[in-house]
């Protein structure tokens, strides 16, 4: 996708070079006059530098962009815009000032901006009454969380993984019960070991299902990669670690949400909307499946996105199901 940086200051392009290098976006520059007088037909996503614009002039240009269904974000380096909310009423999908630029524009942020605009389209909103995801203040504002910066008892935003082992069915109750017990233990062990190298930790676990946490940051694609691999390697993992006879299957769901961090085994008093939501998702999922919520989809690398298909909404989340190629 092409990002057009609309500014008369060539030095601004430097802030977009990382996006260009990532290969996910190609970045070009266009003068403000070029934008104002040209056709919008070829534009995909515009970052408009608003320095020097009169308010009325800016409103007029934003109206035109919005009418032409061009996705646009505002670059306000000098923070001259007085009413930032108005920009969003006029159709902007992101607001970038000097503070944002100083930490760098990430792929994930641009994707979120694009998704924000798509989500605002009436056709894409299945449940208009669904509440918007709650923004949490405090420690979650840290740009790149890792376990060293996470303290017991504080609330953070995490990438959350629901993992549940599917029940084993059989003719003989006794052997089925034993197999079920064995598979639960082995599965918990497998998932914990599988995600440990990428910073995943068991948060809570009850019998056949649990939640694992990964430190959240906008470019943390590892949990999604790892879950994808786990689904792909189902037979291999069974053969190597679980059962050679009756294959054990599992359900995975990835979500982004906030919760108070407590070490595993000390989470009985934790109250978290996101955790409850994820358990609801997990309990309603079909056997042998992997779902991501809309928020977590932003953490799925571009190359794996085609394997996720929208499956409508559940509670407040849009849901996407992974389909193996060829299925």
């Amino acid at each position, binding site marked *: 996708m092409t990002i057009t940086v609309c500014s008369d200051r060539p030095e601004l392009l430097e802030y977009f070079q990382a996006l260009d290098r990532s290969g996910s976006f190609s970045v070009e520059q266009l003068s403000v006059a070029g934008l104002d007088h040209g056709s919008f037909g070829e534009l995909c996503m515009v970052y408009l530098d608003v320095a020097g614009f009169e308010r009325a002039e800016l409103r007029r240009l934003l109206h035109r962009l919005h009418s032409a269904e061009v996705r646009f974000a505002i670059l306000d380096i000098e923070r001259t815009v007085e009413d930032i909310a108005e920009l969003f009423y006029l159709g902007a999908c992101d607001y970038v000032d000097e503070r944002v630029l100083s930490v760098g524009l990430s792929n994930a942020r641009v994707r979120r901006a694009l998704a924000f605009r798509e989500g605002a389209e009436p056709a894409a909103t299945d449940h208009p009454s669904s509440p918007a995801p709650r923004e949490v203040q405090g420690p979650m504002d840290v740009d790149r969380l890792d376990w060293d910066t996470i303290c017991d008892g504080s609330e953070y935003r995490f990438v959350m993984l629901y993992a549940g082992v599917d029940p084993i069915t059989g003719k003989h109750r006794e052997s089925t019960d034993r197999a079920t017990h064995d598979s639960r233990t082995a599965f918990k062990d497998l998932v914990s070991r599988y995600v440990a190298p990428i910073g995943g930790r068991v948060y809570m676990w009850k019998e056949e299902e649990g939640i694992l946490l990964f430190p959240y940051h906008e470019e943390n694609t590892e949990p999604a990669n790892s879950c994808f691999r786990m689904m*792909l390697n189902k*037979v*291999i993992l069974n*053969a190597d670690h679980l059962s*050679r006879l009756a294959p054990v299957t599992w359900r995975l769901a990835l979500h982004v949400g906030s919760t108070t961090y407590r070490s595993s085994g000390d989470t009985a008093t934790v109250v978290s909307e996101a955790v409850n939501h994820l358990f609801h998702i997990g309990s309603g999922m079909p056997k042998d499946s992997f779902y991501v919520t809309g928020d977590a989809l932003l953490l799925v690398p571009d*190359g794996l996105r085609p394997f996720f298909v929208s499956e409508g909404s559940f509670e407040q989340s849009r849901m996407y199901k992974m389909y*193996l*190629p*060829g*299925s």
Partner: protein
Amino acid sequence: MRVKARLKNLAGRALAESMDVKTMVHFARRLIPNYDLHQRTGFPESVAIPNKDAAGQIVSDMIGEECFLEFVETLIDVGQRGMAGRKYRIPRLSAIISEILETGYVLDSESGRFVEDAGVRKTRNWGVLHEGESYVMAFLGVDIVGNSRLVREHGRHAVQPLYDQLRSRLQLCAERRNGRLWGWEGDGGIAAFAFTERNRRAVLAGMELLHELFMYNALYRPLDGGLKVRMTVHNGPCEYQSGGAPYNSDTVQRLWHIDHEYGKANVLTVTETVYATIEALIAEEFTLYQPEPNVALHQYWVGNGAGR
């Protein structure tokens, strides 16, 4: 293998306490044909050799001939199944086995052989295969599709790092299942698997490599259409050569023949003899492919069996 004095002593005592000298010689000839104890010890033919001296000499000779591990394996076998119709109780066997395990070997339960513990040491012959001897093994062959075209279109400098990546992933997938990379030549290579469940381990390594390649192509999108490989698993006898891949072995030649004739891009092809030994859980992922009436192969690709 370097045998410590304590282990040598234990083995000598176990042998001396479990059988008479005549039986010991018979036992030694299982490993060293025409073994002549009198000649080795220097005792005249007319003089009886004491048990302890005979056992000590045999153990020293086994170490000298580099077949100490086979000696202990045979000792275990005799302790379990007897020899020439007679049962023998071999004392100190568990202590001997423990000593060997501590030096970085594991006892392969099916074959009853000591093999290297992959977590401790990885050598090309698992520490036990002998130069020039033939062993039944399984091989996983990997061959990059359209190598010449890729080099022509993208240049050697662009494709070489990708090939190196593939090589190291093949090595990783093989070694994770106690296989060994036995050769890599430019655009493909071969991994060998020996001992218990060699076929199963070779197949699983191939499947995992195919999945890794799928992820690599999806995430990094190399070379426009991605990197494509053919993979084949075949088994059979093969002479161990320390110097390089056994490309002159019939088994390996057959593997490459199957690869070139019937292999497909990003497909793992498994021959009938391999397929017949893998458990149903894995076998169900494969689809029968009969390119000719007398050729039965089984193929797997990412997504094959999805939804089953």
